[in-house]
């Protein structure tokens, strides 16, 4: 694919992510924070987010798998997940956290498990999308083009 095409695909893809609510304005902030001294900032932060989220999701799974669920602990995990997802702009993941916390308050394991399931799905979705986005970026760069700024 030639550079122009790649760039157009990139822009469109990015726009769709925003449109569909996968990403929000916070992600744009990340993009703006990227500069010459931190050229891979977005990728770096998103990677951190992936790692952190997967760890949290594992912890959540384990916590909810206990005979006696420690809901405070679960709530703490969810809270953190909410924080990090909101910081990177993973809007749909963040939105799942709110009902999750409510379930924790109610100390309902079942509903919590359902929330967990949903969060995992959203997480995997946004992870996939972002990875696709980064690949597009790489292709553009490889083809000698510049990454267009999407606002």
């Amino acid at each position, binding site marked *: 694919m030639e550079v122009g095409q790649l760039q157009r695909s990139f822009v469109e893809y990015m726009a769709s992510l925003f449109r569909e609510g996968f990403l929000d304005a916070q992600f744009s902030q990340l993009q703006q924070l990227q500069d010459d001294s931190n050229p891979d900032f977005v990728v770096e932060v998103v990677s*951190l987010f992936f790692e952190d989220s997967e760890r949290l999701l594992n912890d959540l799974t384990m916590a909810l798998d206990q005979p006696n669920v420690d809901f405070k602990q679960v709530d703490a995990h969810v809270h*953190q997940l909410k924080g990090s997802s909101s910081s*990177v702009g993973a809007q749909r993941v963040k939105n799942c956290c709110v009902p999750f916390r409510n379930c924790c308050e109610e100390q309902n394991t079942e509903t919590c498990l359902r929330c967990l399931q949903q969060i995992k799905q959203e997480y995997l979705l946004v992870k996939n999308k972002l990875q696709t986005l980064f690949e597009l970026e790489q292709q553009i760069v490889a083809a000698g083009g510049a990454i267009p700024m999407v606002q």
Partner: protein
Amino acid sequence: MVSMSGDVATCKSEATVVTDHFPVGLRVLVVDDDVVCLRIIEQMLRRCKYSVTTCTQAMVALSLLREKRGTFDIVLSDVHMPDMDGFKLLELVGLEMDLPVIMMSGDGRTNLVMRGVQHGACDYLIKPIRDEELKNIWQHVVRKRYNSSKEPECSGSLDDNDRYKRGSDDAECASSVIEGADGVLKPQKKKRETKEEEDTEMENDDPSTTKKPRVVWSVELHQQFVSAVNQLGIDKAVPKRILELMNVPGLTRENVASHLQENQKFRLYLKRLSGVVQQQGGLPSTFCGPIEQNSEHGSLGRFDIQALAASGQIPPETLTALHAELLGRSTSNLVLPAVEIQNLLQASLQQAKCIPVDQVMAYGQPLLKCPPSISNSKHLSQAILSAEDVHSGFGSQRAKNICLGPSSNPIELAAPNSNMLMAMMQQQQWQKQQQMELQHRQSGPPVVNHSINVQPSCLVLPSQLPGNFQVGDSPASISHASSLSKSSVIDYGVLSPQSNNSSGVVQVLDRELKPECGLNRLPSGGSLSRSCSINADNSVGLQLHNSSSAFGSSKQLPALIPNHLGSPVPYYINSSQVLDQGHMRNSGVGKCASIPSRFAVDESDSPMCNFNTAKIYLEETKVKQEPNMNVMENAKVGPAIFQTFQPGDLMSVFGD
């Protein structure tokens, strides 16, 4: 140093005004267990040109803050953290370091925000945080300092207020103690310097003098002044008579009056601190006083001294008496055995000294004046660290006690103590010098006269006071200090022959005065190493700066910070380097003081060794070695450099 009286007003306004580069270099510590948020906030802060240090654990953050007092201007902390509740951290920081703390949380429920407010948070940010919100966090630093400086009655001397304000002007004034040291920010340095100079000028309550062309009180001139006063006797040392005796063409009565006033104020200040005008027993009364006083009046209000100093209403008798003391009428007072000094220092340090650094500064006296501009580079932070160490070595209590003035920076607080000590030492030296000089008027190197003669032995050096210093560092660091002091000593020129003895304090100052960058900057990357190399160039600057002893020694009296810092030493070096050679020169006395202030007394907390606990600061430790080398080199250069100092600077330093 020539300050403009008019500047005072400017200073004042500037005190709360951001310097050109302010708040660039604001030193922020961010604590959040969420690495994603941490990274993002870090980047945002970097974009704001702040100096960022990150932590994922509250305990680490706390130890960082404790170990390196004065290296941060503000703390951002998450509310929910696994090892410690954010509010708890908030409380502790507010209590121990008196730094502004901003809370962050993804949870923005009112009750939580309320808790934050109740625990003393300056602000509460809700995640996700936008960079616009972070841009303005500097206001909390300024506000806090400003309010602090306003608390005590800063009546009287504008300088005091300015000092405080300056110190509080965020990073810039981080170290009000540091003469001319512009706290953390580089630009601050200049500002501070100016301020310092202005302050000293402002010391004179005599409006006429402030407006007149400045008279540079050279060493010789001061000598004449001193001898004239001595001749007249305290009671009769009125400006007119002094002027007559001095017989210096072009010198006006007002010049003399203001000079007298400056000295007296300082002396009065000391006197009041100690409650004893005359002290026998080997300590210069004026200088011993404060120290001893400290132990007795540990509770001395933060701004008490300031008030004292500030109040222009000093009875002439007291003034003259103080002045006489200052001038070392009684030789016995001048000679303070190193041991005694140490003891005094220790004693004083034991107590929380609420000697506002500014106060000390105000008098521009021998008090250590840290290099005026401690740029906010990492070096600065290092210096700060060392300063802190120093203080801790002294066993000073909470930095807070050492009220260095408005600055909430504990480091600054610490400085006063060291300043006092330094001042004492310096005074002693100075007086000794004076006497010697008087005896051999024309003999000896001219330089001898001015330098505060900080005898290395007199300085509280780690080597001398090993017990006191809490510097957990290895002896190596101490030696660093020693070498440092040597250089600084040399700077004084006077000490050149003796410079070899000097240890620690002076040296430390030199180091700290590294012109490179702000002492107090703890680089997030932990690169303290910056200014480790004390070059000859630096040494010059250092010397000037280091002469905390305002004894008119080299312009830049390096802050005589007891060198008991083990590891901190390297930091000092940096800071001194940062302290700006250039700035120091101008500010003279004041500068040095700032350094000490920077090094807030590290209250009993973690010994210096803990330095390395913060991973971020690991790098710092590496730096240690360098300065030593340089210091020595500088030492050699010292005397020569010293010679180049303008006598006026020395004098002014003293006169500050």
